[in-house]
């Protein structure tokens, strides 16, 4: 959801209602709503204060998504960076295709973020997947 607000402190009440309504609709607890309101106000107020001659509206977008984070820890496995881009054959004719090699390619296309860390024999992969509208 996106809305434009006049560059003025009088916009704060409407800005609060706009973001509060969306967060309430998602049943978000106080513990998130408070810091979101605070950060939004602080940033907005600074844009007002420190650009006194600018007259354009300020565009504010808010998006609520549910995010799943999964981690897999491999103790004692070889080091292998699952985030590295791989050559995958998804174009050649049937005769030339080889089974295998699609797993990481699929992951890299399907998840929203993918990280790999390796230290002292401990390899950890963390990926996230978000629901909902991703444009803010």
């Amino acid at each position, binding site marked *: 959801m996106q809305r434009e607000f006049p560059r003025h402190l009088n916009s704060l009440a409407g800005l609060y209602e706009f973001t509060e309504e969306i967060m309430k609709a998602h049943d978000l607890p106080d513990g998130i709503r408070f810091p979101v309101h605070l950060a939004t106000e602080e940033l907005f107020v600074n844009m007002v204060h420190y650009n006194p001659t600018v007259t354009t509206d300020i565009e504010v977008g808010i998006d609520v998504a549910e995010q799943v984070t999964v981690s897999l820890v491999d103790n004692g496995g070889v080091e292998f960076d699952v985030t590295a881009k791989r050559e995958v*054959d*998804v*174009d050649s*004719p*049937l*005769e030339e*295709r080889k*089974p*295998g090699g*699609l*797993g990481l*390619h*699929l992951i890299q*296309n*399907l998840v929203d973020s993918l990280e790999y860390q390796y230290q002292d024999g401990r390899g950890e992969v963390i990926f996230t997947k978000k629901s909902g509208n991703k444009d803010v």
Partner: protein
Amino acid sequence: MFEIEYGDGGAVMCRGRLDAAQCEKAEAFMGELEGENTLDFTDLEYISSAGLGILLKTQKRLAGSSAGLKIINVNNHIYDVFRYSGFHAIFDIEAKE
């Protein structure tokens, strides 16, 4: 759970979740297929790359002598997986209505 068997209409019905632990079962069945075949994915919820490998292997074996595998009633998640894998160019795939 994953199940594979012939349906009443002659299509091969695949049901459940085809993950890497279910591949032996799938491979045993698909290894016996001859000629043209239709796989009906109406009740297949899930497939991972291990299952894709079996489909590809079967297709390579059959496509020399016939039109190979036709896969019908594919749900939109599996359809995405096929698309990312470039399977549309090498299988006859029909999405679920």
